[in-house]
C-alpha cells in the first residue's frame, strides 16, 4: 500500500522540469567525481609518462608534452645501475618482512593473553596499554635515537627494526576479534587436553585470519613508507630503505639532474604497494576504515 502511494505521488510529481533538474544534478555529480579521479590519477600518469621519455627528449620539451611517441626503458636500466635501487628495494623488503613477522608474534601473544587468559592485574595492564595509544611517535623517537646510537646499532637492521615492531592499536584490534570467538571452542580444546599455544595456533589464528591479514598489510604499508626513523638511524647507503633512497636520488641523484630516471625509480618504488592494494583491496579498505591512522 505504502509503496503504491509513493509511486503515485512520484508519477504526479515528476514533471518535465524535475526530470531536467535531476539530469543536471547527475551530470554535475558525475563531472565532479570524474574530476577528482583525474586529480588523483594524474600524478601517477605523469610519473609513468616521464619515466618512459628519454633524457634528451624530456629536456628538450620546454612545454611538457602529455604523451610520448617514442617510449624507452632506458631510464629503468639507469635507475637500477646508476643508483643502488635494487639494494634499497631488498633492504625495504627485509625490513618489512622481519618487522611484520615480529609484530605478528608479539601482537598475537598479547592479544591472546588479554582476550582469553585470566591473571592478576590484567585489567590494569590493559588500561595502561590503551593509554599508550595516545603517545605520539614524535615524542619517543628522540630517546630511541639516542638509545640505538649508544648501543652502536646505527646502520644495522636490528636498529631499524626493533623500535618499529610494536603497535598497541593492533593488539587492541586483534584482542577484540579474539573475544568474538565463542568460549566453548576454548573449553572444548581444554577438555581435549590441548595446550593454550596449540589452541592459539590451530583455532584462534585461523578463525581470525581476516583481521590478521588486515594488520599484516597495514603494517607492511607502514614499513614501506617509513621515512623518519630510517633517516635518523642510517647514514650508510647500504642500509637505506626506499624512502631514504628516493630522497638520496633526489638530492645527489644520477650525477646530473635526470628527471626521467628519477621517475623510473619512483615508479619502481610505487608498484609493489599498488599491486598489494589491487590484490587485497577489500581487506585493506576494511582495515583502514576500522583503524587507519594516516591523515
Amino acid at each position: 500500500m505504502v509503496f503504491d502511494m509513493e509511486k503515485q505521488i512520484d508519477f504526479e510529481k515528476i514533471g518535465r522540469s524535475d526530470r531536467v533538474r535531476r539530469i543536471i544534478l547527475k551530470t554535475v555529480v558525475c563531472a565532479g567525481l570524474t574530476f577528482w579521479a583525474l586529480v588523483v590519477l594524474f600524478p601517477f600518469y605523469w610519473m609513468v609518462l616521464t619515466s618512459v621519455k628519454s633524457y634528451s627528449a624530456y629536456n628538450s620539451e620546454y612545454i611538457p608534452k602529455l604523451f610520448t611517441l617514442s617510449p624507452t626503458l632506458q631510464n629503468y636500466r639507469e635507475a637500477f645501475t646508476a643508483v643502488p635501487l635494487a639494494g634499497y628495494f631488498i633492504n625495504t623488503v627485509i625490513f618489512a618482512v622481519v618487522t611484520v613477522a615480529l609484530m605478528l608474534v608479539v601482537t598475537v601473544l598479547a592479544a591472546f593473553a588479554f582476550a582469553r587468559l585470566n591473571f592478576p592485574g590484567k585489567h590494569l595492564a590493559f588500561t595502561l596499554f590503551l593509554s599508550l595509544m595516545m603517545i605520539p611517535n614524535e615524542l619517543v623517537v628522540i630517546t630511541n635515537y639516542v638509545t640505538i646510537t649508544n648501543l652502536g646499532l646505527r646502520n644495522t637492521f636490528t636498529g631499524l627494526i626493533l623500535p618499529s615492531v610494536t603497535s598497541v592499536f593492533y593488539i587492541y584490534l586483534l584482542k577484540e576479534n579474539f573475544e568474538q570467538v565463542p568460549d566453548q571452542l576454548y573449553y572444548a580444546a581444554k577438555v581435549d587436553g590441548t595446550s593454550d599455544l596449540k589452541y592459539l595456533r590451530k583455532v584462534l589464528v585461523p578463525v581470525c585470519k581476516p583481521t590478521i591479514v588486515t594488520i599484516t598489510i597495514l603494517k607492511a604499508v607502514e614499513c614501506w613508507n617509513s621515512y623518519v626513523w630510517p633517516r635518523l638511524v642510517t647514514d650508510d647507503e647500504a642500509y637505506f630503505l626506499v624512502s631514504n633512497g628516493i630522497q638520496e636520488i633526489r638530492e645527489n641523484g644520477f650525477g646530473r639532474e635526470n628527471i626521467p630516471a628519477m621517475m623510473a625509480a619512483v615508479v619502481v618504488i610505487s608498484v609493489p604497494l599498488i599491486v598489494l592494494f589491487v590484490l587485497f583491496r577489500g581487506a585493506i579498505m576494511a582495515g583502514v576504515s576500522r583503524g587507519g591512522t594516516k591523515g
Partner: protein
Amino acid sequence: MDKKGMKGWLYLLPAILFLGFFLVYPLIDVLIYSFEEGYNFASQTYYGVGLYNYSYVLHDPYFLQALRNTFILVVVTVPLSTALALLISAGLSSFRPLRSLYQTVYFLPYVTNTLAVGLVFMILFRKTPYTDGFVNRILGWIGAGPIDFIDGSYPAKMFVLCLYTIWVVMPFKILVLTSALASVNQEYYNAAKVDGTSRFRIFARITLPMISPTLVYLIITGFIGAFKAYSDAVALFGTNLNTAEMNTIVGYVYDMLYGSSGGYPSYASAAAILLFVIVLTITCVNLMVSRKHLHYGV
C-alpha cells in the same frame, strides 16, 4: 603468584618488553631531557635543570617559522579536506554506476610512498630555466604568469604544500565518510521523501546530524595528523627545510636531533613536548566544542 597467573604475564612479556623499552622509557626520558640544561651529547653531561631549553626553542626564529607553517597548514587543510571529502562521499553515495571503481581510484594515494609521489608533485609544479612545468602550462591557458611553486615565493610554496597534504589525506576521509553515509538508516530518507523534503534540507537536517560523530572523529584525527606534518614537506622541498622556509614543528624536532644543525636532543625534546601540549590542548578544545554542538551522541 600461581602458575596460571604467571602464564598470562608470560604471553604479555614480549609486548611489555618492546613497549617498555621503546615507548614508556623514552616518554619519561624525553621529559627529563627537556629540562636538562646544556646537555652534551658526546659526554652525556649537563650543568643544570630548568626551563632554558623551552625558552631557547620559543625564541628560535626557525621554531617560530615552523610553528607558523604548521598552523597555516592545519587551518587550511583540515577544513578544506574534510569538506571536500564530504562532498565527494555524498556524490559517491548518490551515484551508482562505477561507484566501486571510483572508490578504488580515490583510495590510491593512501597506498603510495609519500616521498615518491611528492617528487612527482614537485616536478609538476616546478619552474626551471629549461621548462615552466606542467602546472604553469595550465596557468598559461588562463593567462596567469609562470610561478615558481617550489623555489619561489612563500605563498606559492605554502599553496603546493597544502595541496599535496590534501591530496594525501583525502583517501582516508573519503573512505570513512562513505561508510558512514552508507550506514545512515534508509527509513529516515524515505520518511523525508514522503513529506516532500528538498534534497538540501534532507542533507542538512538528516544526513549531517547522523554522520556528525564521524565528522568530529575525522576533524580531530585531521588536526592531529596535520600538526605532525613533515614528510610531505620533505618530499616537495628537500631535507633542508629551514632554508626553504617550509619547516614544520616535527621537522624542527628532527633537525635539532640530527643532520647538519643537529646534536641537540634537549632542544628537540623541548620542541616535541611543546608539540604534544599543543596537540593535546587542541584535541580537548575540539572535543568540548563538538560535545556542545553534537546533535547525536558519540
